[in-house]
């Protein structure tokens, strides 16, 4: 579920805002300016916080609710930045039938935040991936690039704990 409120405080820089305004100026007045602006804003900030969406809303005269609707529709956009530790669980067909949804639920329970979101200290983020192409290892969890195959719910806590040291 990508739809969660942004949980970390906004920390955009003046340089990022200047870039954003340049992007908006470039697309303003063209047909369908919202999608390309959101794409570039996602690249500039790494996510689409409310402050950024509000700026786009004011500049384009499109209600914030509508922009929010677009930003939650596409999985390319995120309302939260990635954490220092990026956890993802593959929800491709093979992983799914082997119980990936339970693994994801356990990750969410352990970290106290939902897929598509980040812990309020900004340390762990969770993503639900599409098929990563290693179905023989299903179900798969990936943490900061390390692949954990044949995942079970029981292993989740231990694996996550082993990364806590990296971010303390």
């Amino acid at each position, binding site marked *: 579920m990508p*739809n969660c*409120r942004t949980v970390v405080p906004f920390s955009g820089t003046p340089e990022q805002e200047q870039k954003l305004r340049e992007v908006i100026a470039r697309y303003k007045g063209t047909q369908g300016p919202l999608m390309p602006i959101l794409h570039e804003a996602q690249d500039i900030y790494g996510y689409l916080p*409310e402050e950024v969406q509000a700026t786009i809303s004011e500049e384009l005269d499109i*209600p914030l609710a509508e922009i929010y609707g677009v930003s*939650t*529709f596409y999985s390319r956009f995120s309302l939260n930045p990635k954490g220092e530790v990026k956890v993802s669980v593959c929800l491709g067909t093979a992983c799914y039938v082997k119980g990936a949804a339970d693994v994801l639920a356990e990750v969410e329970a352990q970290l106290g935040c939902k897929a598509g979101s980040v812990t309020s200290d900004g340390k762990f983020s969770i993503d639900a991936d599409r098929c990563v192409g290693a179905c023989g290892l299903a179900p798969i969890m990936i943490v900061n690039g390390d692949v954990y195959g044949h995942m079970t719910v029981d292993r989740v806590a231990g694996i996550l704990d082993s990364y806590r040291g990296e971010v303390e």
Partner: protein
Amino acid sequence: MSENMINLKIDGVSVEVPAGSTVLQAALAAGVRIPTLCYMKDANELGSCRICVVEIKGGRGLAAACVYPAADGMEVFTNTEKVRASRRQTLELILSNHRMECPTCERNGDCELRRLAADMGIDSIRYEVEDLEPQLDESAPHLVRDNSKCILCRRCVAVCRKNQQVGVISAADRGFATHIESAFGRGLGEVSCVYCGQCVAACPTGALTLKRSIDAVRAAIDDPSKHVVVVPAPAVRVGLGDRFGMPVGESVQGKMVAALRRLGFDKVFDVDWAADVTIMEEGTELVGRIKAGEKMPMFTSCCPGWIKYMEHYHADMLDNLSSCRSPQQMMGGLVKTYYAEREGIAPEDIVVVSIMPCTAKKFEVSREEQRLENGCMPVDYSLTTRELSDMIAGAGIMFGLLPDEAFDPVLGDSTGAAVIFGASGGVMEAALRTAAVVLAGDDADVPLVFEDVRGMEGVKEAEYEVGGVKLRTCTVSGLANAEKVIRAMEAGEAAYDFIEVMACPGGCVNGAGQPMHSPFERMMTDVKGERAAGLYALDDSMPRRRSHENPEVKALYAEYLGEPCGHKAHHILHTEYVPRDTYNV
């Protein structure tokens, strides 16, 4: 055959319709009603719910009649087994993901989904029905959203964005997770919603329902220590009858008064009386501003949805709003001061209940800046016309059999100028009637009727010369139209002296608190136009048609207030406005 007409066959019946018609419209011309759900004429034409599908000869698959263009020579079949099976499957799927608690749902009497299931003969659902929990947003003062009953037709989103240009709700997420909400999951009470309630009026199910105050009002009536005064708004008397099978737009004023007495209210006064007071104040204010050349143009301030819109979106123009409180608030204020003092009743023992066609009034009664100097809020509870109709039905009162009764005196008499407040253009016309006399010095050769400000169009411009003063007027309903007018003014493309704005398209007669009508009923009957016509007929029938001729209003000023816009009036009848943020409310 005329050049702009096309011929086609609907279920074997030949019809001629204007080019550009949809299959749905062509079918109506052939006397066939194709069922619809997401379709709302002009506002929501998406073809997304797939209930209106039809077969078209030579076409691939089924077509959505609400958006499919009719063409010359086309043959359409609306009632084949293929069509019926598809519609049935679609409706069953919708129902399988809809929290059904029909007997206890506020919309059980007028739910479009329920009606559709009955019309289509749905007697079972082949799919596993989701066991849904309520998904409530109760943060707004006027409505409750329960997304477990939402069928994602997006009619609410469309009216909020297109008709009202507010756009505080949208579809979020995708697939099964799709739901309607405000940006970043905020509640409706935490965003720049103006509380007009047009989304509720657009909802086909119980996903959007009014917050109700019936129990509190009944408790007040039952409390012997309370003196409970009820005050219905102009538009209520031409809406209430819908619930009881009267023709749309017919005035039921006399029966309404009788019903209110039978419900146990101690006094039945009329907001029309306060509308006449409003004209005394607003007319005086307008003449004063024109003479001083200050804070022009002046906007009317009767509509709480419009006021909140200005506070959120045009806070730099708040000085241009008339400082007059709305008739509802003037009414309550004068009941708890003038009437209370006159009758020797402690104002804190008086409970004022307004009956309104409006949902924003539920918010207006809570506005702290309107608290009276005696510590009381002017109005305690604001009920909608629908709530009143439920109270009447719930009490077993056979409305159609009631005699016609009159309002109680002192705050009950009114003029024709007041009753038209309920239609777009009514406040403007009422103000012009009195301003013309005031500016001319007498009423000889002064016009009574100002035809150009009447009608259901969203923007009506008219110029009048009254008492040697040229007045450029603009009468607007629907907030998207108001936004257009404001932008034209800001761009220097338009200039006016006096502007009436009502948030709901057509004015209060079309308020979201009035009895519901489905989009289909609204295609067949001009609901708001008929209700407005009902008000103008009442105006025609009145012995006095200018607010300043109201004897009870004259008495109010002579005995209590002194001058319009004077010191005392300022405290009871005028107010100020609060700039509000657009995003972080």
